[in-house]
């Protein structure tokens, strides 16, 4: 019974947290779209700085993860296709698989660890150090001042980095097909392009924007609600990664099913 009660409590906790993420999204949209007309401009320069910090700097990790998964997927798929014969369709699987599913998902998970954790720790430390209160006391809204530039950066950069992820992952598959399976490069590209539709591209793009929003909102909301010193910051950082990954995979599942038809 206590275990059940515990489960219920953490369920309520997660639900409350998701609500606070939506509240933050509402604030974000206000400071992005309404407040600039009332004399509170968006900090464009800071957004660009954050885009470099959170987006550009993550490209090496995104490269490694997508590349290795690309290689692994190509070998696995080729092994299965070999049973029936059409090994050249490996290229098709790589194209659709990465554009539509794998690169958005893998990149978002990398970003949850790379950017989400960093946001939670940064904002949490600022909260503990009274910096957020100092901002408020000098008439600077922390959401406008800190959260909006970081969220803009993620909404722009996660799709861009996902695009890089596509290239890296498919390149991994390409190396397997041309090197290990001795296919001609043109065959690989032809098969890949034949099977791809416009829908694969926009579905992938849409997912990456939504995942970027999840990484940013969860990381920032965790940072904002830090309480009680270093331990609180550590907990928020862990929670940011765990909650982001769960929410990303859940959203991916829902979107994939919804967009299947």
């Amino acid at each position, binding site marked *: 019974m206590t275990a059940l009660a515990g489960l219920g409590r953490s369920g309520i906790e997660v639900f409350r947290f998701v609500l606070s993420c939506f509240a933050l999204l509402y604030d974000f949209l206000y400071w992005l779209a309404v407040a600039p007309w*009332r004399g509170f401009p968006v900090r464009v320069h800071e957004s660009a700085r954050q885009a470099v910090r959170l987006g550009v700097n993550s490209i090496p990790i995104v490269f490694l993860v997508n590349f290795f998964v690309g290689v692994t997927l190509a070998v696995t798929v080729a092994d299965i296709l070999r049973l029936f014969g059409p090994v050249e369709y490996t290229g098709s699987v790589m194209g659709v698989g990465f554009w539509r599913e794998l690169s958005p998902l893998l990149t978002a998970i990398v970003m949850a660890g790379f950017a989400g954790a960093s946001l939670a720790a940064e904002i949490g430390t600022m909260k503990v150090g*009274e910096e957020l*209160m*100092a*901002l*408020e*006391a*000098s*008439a600077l809204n922390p959401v406008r001042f800190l959260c909006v530039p970081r969220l803009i950066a993620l909404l722009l950069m996660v799709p861009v980095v996902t695009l890089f992820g596509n290239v890296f992952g498919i390149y991994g598959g390409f190396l397997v097909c041309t090197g290990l399976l001795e296919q001609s490069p043109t065959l690989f590209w032809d098969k890949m392009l034949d099977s791809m539709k416009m829908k694969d591209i926009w579905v992938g793009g849409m997912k990456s924007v939504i995942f970027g929003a999840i990484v940013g909102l969860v990381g920032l909301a965790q940072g904002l609600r830090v309480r009680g010193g270093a331990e609180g910051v550590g907990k928020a950082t862990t929670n940011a990664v765990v909650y982001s990954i769960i929410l990303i995979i859940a959203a991916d599942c829902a979107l994939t099913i919804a967009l299947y038809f």
Partner: protein
Amino acid sequence: MTDAATPFPTQPSEFQKGDVVIRCRNITKSYDGRPILKGIDLEVRKGETLVIMGGSGHGKSTMLRLMIGAERPDSGTIELFGNDITALREEQLYPIKRKFGVLFQSGALYNSMTVGDNIALPLREHTNLDEHIISIIVKLKLELVGLRDFEHLVPSQLSGGMKKRVGLARAIALDPEIIFYDEPGAGLDPVMLAVIDELITGLGEKLGVASIVVTHEMDSAFRIADRMVLMHGGVILAEGTPEEIRNSPDPVLQQFIQGKAEGPIPLRLSSKDFAEDLLGG
């Protein structure tokens, strides 16, 4: 010393020396059902230094957070410059917030910025001054706290006391009419403490700044205060000039200002009897 604060083009204040700039009426606040403030009335006049004393956990910091608009009271009104801030929306508070400065306990510097940028931030965000003027003001404010050479360092390279001094320089960047100090003495050496004390009284006498100082340092409190209040158990136990406070017969007050371990202020905050608790009763 305070000449440095004049080049900033502030509008002449509509408040004269002696006018009430902060008026708190019947403030109550509780956290998780535990009452911290039980009806506080407080007034601060322009040009005056009010020292708020009290043991830890008796509501001093809460009172400060309410007065700077970081939190809202459960009931009661807080008027800053005649505007009830408890009734205002966040954006309506901004013009009022620009007229006061806060020195936080730890200094609360923005760790990602240099010392100079910390002080320049309010100027960049709230004025149309160009960078050249801003850099002059930053130097003036840093000179005031004796740290002009440290402009290009980041907060992690400073000692605790230095951070506090930079925090003060930032608090006065916009030449505020009210300055709140949260334990300005904690972590400072005696010499620096005297310098800060002098700065606080100087700002009050020459520029008519109202200062609200939350502190435990009794020597410093008696040096700077025009008026003192002692908060105890969520109410204001005593209020008066330093002279009145020193001569008050109130045993709680005397225990506090003399810093004695024995007296009417309970050391232990437990509700149960000690023996009863040990024996599992």
